[in-house]
């Protein structure tokens, strides 16, 4: 928490200094250089570099230079400590939950400003093509990154949670391999039939592998149609309290606890991907994991991947809600000279072109930002190789557009997530009952929110 207050003090202090830090735009070989801080390591980083190369070859005014800055928390820390200096980037990629913080930091230019400017230009000049066809953008991503009706950042990489399952295990248990469970009760029934024990009574295969993650908790709440924070998830006004401690939240924690206690589910801890690995290795029949792992894992398995299905994330009782789109967005930094900001905007327009997005989807496994990219090559081929994407897509498209699926906007989201994880852990080790753990988590979260709100409104 202190870090945050400190960060905001830094922001305020450095904004005052900002004017003296100005040192003209960066240039390279006669072009304006656009420095883009990102957190895409490995294969995804290569894909991003190819995207930048493509942009650099497509025009001769700007040169985008992607710079890897470690994970999102590292990158954000570096950004905050660079406020007011000339080492700020023109673009930065940050994870979804930084939305409120980035808006409050006033360090960025709302993306909407660029869209409005181009719309005005095309309206004034007959025949000038519209800048961006927002109608073709994934509406849930636009909803997520919009605040007060204005798009704040460009959705850059998108993902969602799914239920992976072992079709062979389903067949063996007499379950329809094309019909994964959609509610908590169904997951429990299926798990009872999928559970296998040896003679000694030890579990050789459990029903479902569950990863302790605040993100899945958020997604399950959304799937049930429940708000995570007050004031319309913090979208109709500054969120002042969390709402995850309602009946739906209790339902989720209770189910989670009962599943693990009864041995129907296995708790794989906080490490991501362990749940999916548990299914791949045959120790569990189902697992809840992100789609972000889908491409790399299933392609690595080759033909063996066919026995793994993907279905929608199960909801507590009514599968009518939807998921909140996860991932990260690219922000344009206000401290940089106008020409760099414009270059950043041009790059983001290029990056979200449908053909570029189809390639990005294939390279990284992230959902395309453009709706039309799904059916374009090479995305269409990927879906033949990894048909599991079809289910992930269906869940995304089936998610209603409302305040719940737009996702919560909370300043100190990282701390709020920490308190949710604590609650999950306490419930799973039996330290607290779901109701008590939720109440404590909500109290912690509300305190963090109150402190944050005080520090930004004063």
């Amino acid at each position, binding site marked *: 928490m202190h870090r945050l207050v400190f960060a905001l003090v830094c922001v305020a202090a450095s904004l005052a200094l900002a004017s003296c830090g100005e040192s003209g735009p960066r240039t390279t070989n006669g072009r304006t250089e656009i420095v883009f801080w990102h957190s*895409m390591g490995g294969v995804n980083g290569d894909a991003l570099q190819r995207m930048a190369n493509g942009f650099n070859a497509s025009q001769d005014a700007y040169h985008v230079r992607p*710079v890897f800055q470690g994970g999102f928390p*590292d990158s954000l820390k570096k950004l905050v*400590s660079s406020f007011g200096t000339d*080492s700020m980037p023109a673009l930065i990629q940050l994870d979804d939950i930084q939305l409120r913080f980035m808006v409050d930091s006033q360090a960025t230019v709302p993306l909407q400003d660029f869209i409005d400017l181009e719309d005005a230009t095309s309206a004034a000049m007959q025949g000038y093509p519209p800048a961006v066809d927002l109608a073709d953008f994934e509406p849930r991503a636009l909803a997520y990154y919009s605040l007060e009706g204005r798009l704040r950042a460009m959705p850059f990489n998108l993902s969602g949670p799914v239920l992976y399952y072992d079709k062979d295990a389903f067949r063996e248990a007499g379950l329809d391999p094309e019909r994964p469970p959609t509610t908590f009760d169904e997951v429990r029934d299926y798990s009872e039939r999928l559970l296998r024990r040896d003679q000694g009574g030890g579990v050789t295969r459990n029903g479902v592998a569950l990863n302790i993650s605040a993100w899945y908790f958020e997604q399950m709440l959304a799937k049930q149609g429940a708000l995570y924070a007050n004031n319309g998830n913090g979208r109709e006004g500054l969120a002042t309290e969390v709402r995850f401690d309602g009946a739906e939240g209790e339902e989720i924690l209770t189910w989670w606890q009962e599943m693990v206690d009864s041995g129907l589910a296995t708790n794989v801890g906080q490490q991501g991907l362990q749940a999916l690995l548990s299914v*791949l290795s045959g120790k569990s029949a189902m697992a809840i994991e992100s789609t972000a792992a889908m491409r790399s894992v299933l392609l690595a398995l080759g033909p063996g991947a066919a026995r793994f299905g993907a279905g929608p994330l199960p909801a507590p009782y009514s599968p009518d809600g939807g998921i909140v789109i996860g991932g990260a967005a690219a922000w344009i930094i206000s401290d940089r000279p106008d020409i760099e900001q414009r270059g950043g905007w041009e790059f983001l327009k290029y990056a979200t072109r449908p053909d570029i997005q189809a390639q990005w989807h294939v390279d990284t*496994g992230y959902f395309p930002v453009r709706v039309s990219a799904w059916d374009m090559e090479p995305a269409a081929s990927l879906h033949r190789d990894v048909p599991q994407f079809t289910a992930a897509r269906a869940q995304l498209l089936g998610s209603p557009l409302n305040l719940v699926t737009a996702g919560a906007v909370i300043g100190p989201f990282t701390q709020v997530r920490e308190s949710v994880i604590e609650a999950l852990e306490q419930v799973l080790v039996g330290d607290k009952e779901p109701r008590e753990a939720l109440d404590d988590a909500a109290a912690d979260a509300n305190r963090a929110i109150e402190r944050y709100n005080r520090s930004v409104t004063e």
Partner: protein
Amino acid sequence: MRQGRTGANTTKRVASALPRYALLLLSAAVILFPLYMTVVDSLQTLDKLLTYPPDFWPNSPQWSNYRSAMTDIPMPRYMMNSLIVAAVITLGQVSTAALAAYAFAFMRFPLRTPLFFIFLSTMMVPWEASIIPNFQTIQRLDWIDTYQGLTVPFLATAFGTFLLRQHFLTLPRELKDAADIDGYGNLKFLLFVVIPLSRAALATLAVFSFLQAWNQYLWPLLVTNEPDMRTVQIGIAALQAEEVQRTNVVLAGTVIALLPMLVLVIVFQRFLVRGLTAGAVKG
């Protein structure tokens, strides 16, 4: 010494040492197992890594993982940067710590003890608390993407000063008196008497400094943007994606980054053990 003992005595000694060695072997195995699996997994194909039960032996070693780790990121350049940075930091820490420790151990000046404790108290300030101000200083000096930015904040060490001072205090005072009579000044005494007698302690400090500098992550990440100036730990982080990707290649990179450390520790091992225990009794 051994010759004086009878054969029966030796057998007895060996027998009594057996359980101890068995325990040591077991602990060594426990500690080495993750390292072993790192090497094994760095030689597997990705789909092998995803299967259960895991293989404990690379049946078809994939050396291409190492090639990927070397070429997907500018690994040689990163290794060189890490070497330069770690060497400069080690040299700086050993020399400044030796000079400061000498002053605290052999020289008499007002407020020596309080000053020493103030010196030590800087060890209580967590690095995380000073990293942002340090970063801003480096930025203001325009030292981003430079070797001085990577090394200067680490050239002095309170821990090293403490370690060396404790060792210097174990040296007989008479040496100093003798040196005084011979007309040795402080610097001469330090260079020709104290340092030769403190090789073990100095080597210990050097290895620790080098290890620490080599393993730095956050600081080099903060003060560099150019790939040419980055160090090996950032390189490994860059091999890794947010989600699962080529774990085998990441592990290959880890093994590559580990090798210089391993060589260093093996070479200096003799000194290390002596250095750690030297001065532990008196002090």
